[in-house]
């Protein structure tokens, strides 16, 4: 029984990286000053598999990307998409959580 418990804990530790929960990628961007132009970011990222949504904060120059359960979005891919959209990629930090629900207008 003790061995079975050890095995479960061991498998849990080993497999944890492959069972990613819904996560957020917070991307720091330069040049994102115009709402009308930043619409291209939404279009480009929403075409990417595993992206469930994103929010743009023009004040902090940050794009927060919601990543679906079990999916991932590498730093290299994010940088590629940011540059493709016309902006300068500064960096990304990953964290757990969900995108804030948009307020109804």
């Amino acid at each position, binding site marked *: 029984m003790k061995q079975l418990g050890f095995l479960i804990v061991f498998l849990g530790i080993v497999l944890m990286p492959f069972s990613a929960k819904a996560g957020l990628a917070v991307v720091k961007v330069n040049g994102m*000053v115009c709402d009308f132009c930043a619409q291209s970011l939404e279009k480009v990222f929403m075409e990417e598999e595993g992206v469930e949504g994103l929010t743009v904060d023009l004040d902090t120059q940050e794009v927060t990307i919601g990543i679906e359960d079990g999916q991932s979005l590498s730093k290299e891919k994010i940088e590629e998409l940011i540059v493709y959209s016309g902006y300068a990629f500064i960096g990304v930090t990953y964290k757990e959580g969900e995108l804030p629900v948009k307020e109804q207008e």
Partner: protein
Amino acid sequence: MSMNNGDTNSVHAHYSPSIHYSVGYKGIYHRDRELGFNGVQLNYLLKRWNNPASQANVYFKTGAGVGYSDRDAFDNEFEPSSFAGFAADWENRRYFVGYENHYMDAGDIDEFYTQKARVGIAPYIGDYGDLHTWLMLQIDHAPDEDNQWTVTPLVRMFKGVHLWETGINNNGEFLLNYIIRY
């Protein structure tokens, strides 16, 4: 996009395979000159500066097609035509400055040079997705026209993929522009 002011009516539908260039149809009619143009326009981004709180761009714009005239001796005359010019802009979330020039060669029908400059200020800073408003002043210079200088105060508003501009110049002529981004 559709641009309409005291002198011209134009339509520009273009596709951007990358941020570096776009290509598309350009149709324009200069009412005072009675000169029309239909052709292909290429916009090329020469340089972009992405700064922490601002962005600046320099573009080269050119086009080729067919010009036609309704005017006097040139009535119903068609000529191979082309144009070229540079555009530059700088903006942050509060201020906007832009400049653009344009040289048009319509063969035997016409040949002219124009330039325009814009300054703008946002009276409030909106968040992403809000209705954004800019108050702008556009100065047009057409050296070979009777009214060489035209000043147009205008309001630019945009929300989502829609952008509108409306204004009235010092000759009492309206400006109405609309852009939709797909």
